[in-house]
């Protein structure tokens, strides 16, 4: 990847991160929100790998971190989906706007 400055790489990941953030903030469907979070996590992954490759090639810390993030994201997603499904069973809705029984 010669010729691509590190900054561009990070900018792309940053943009992706905030696209995800926007999705998280606006999507009314809980599953869609979860998907947005996955985008955010992926953008961070890009960061780690890019930093590792560009700046600290002596070791593979960034890469390892990425792998852990992916693993943990999977676990998180699984639990999240389980909870969302359970919520759906209980309320017949997965609309974020309606999941506001607990408030004030």
């Amino acid at each position, binding site marked *: 990847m010669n010729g691509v400055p590190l900054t561009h790489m990070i900018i792309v990941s940053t*943009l992706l991160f*905030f696209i995800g953030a926007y999705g998280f903030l606006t999507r009314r469907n809980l599953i869609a929100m979860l998907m947005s979070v996955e985008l955010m996590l992926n953008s961070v992954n890009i960061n780690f790998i890019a930093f590792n490759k560009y*700046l600290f090639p002596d070791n593979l810390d960034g890469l*390892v971190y990425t792998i*852990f993030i992916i693993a943990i994201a999977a676990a998180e997603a699984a639990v999240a989906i389980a909870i969302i499904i359970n919520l759906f069973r209980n309320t017949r809705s997965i609309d974020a706007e309606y999941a506001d029984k607990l408030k004030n």
Partner: protein
Amino acid sequence: MTSAAIAFYIISAFILVTGILTVFTKKLFRAAIWLLLSLIGIAALYFAMEVDFAAAVQIIVYVGGIVVLIIFSIFLTNNEGVNMPSALSKRKIFSALASVCGAGYTVMLVNQHIWMTPSAKVYDPAVKKIGYLLVSNSPSSYVLPFEVVSILLLAAMVGCIVIAIKAKPEEK
């Protein structure tokens, strides 16, 4: 501009466009597909960066696992064909503002930052090395977090099973 650079920009554009589509598409199922494509795009980026292992894990775990899980859950919640209701416009405006500002601010910071001089060593993400790093018991290995993650996965599994398994509440 090298071909690698061109590839990078194309992939980047793909990732971003599919990402945007993921968060804007009205139909949930389509959003999932766009997410899938975006994730594949990221995997492609890893390939382009010659981090094959990461790309592989990305494809296997994300594409093969998480997205599938998401699609299943979409089916389970019977939402695949319906247009999702749009968010309140107030929320949209504020979120957009926040996202744009946040992105702009972060990009500015990143742009301003003067990165360290990279070491001259060549980056070598060989699978063997990664494996050694993850599971050897050498003092510098990541075996401990690796084991801890295994507990996490176990716990997550248990949690998922408890919560998502079809309960039989009617028994009571």
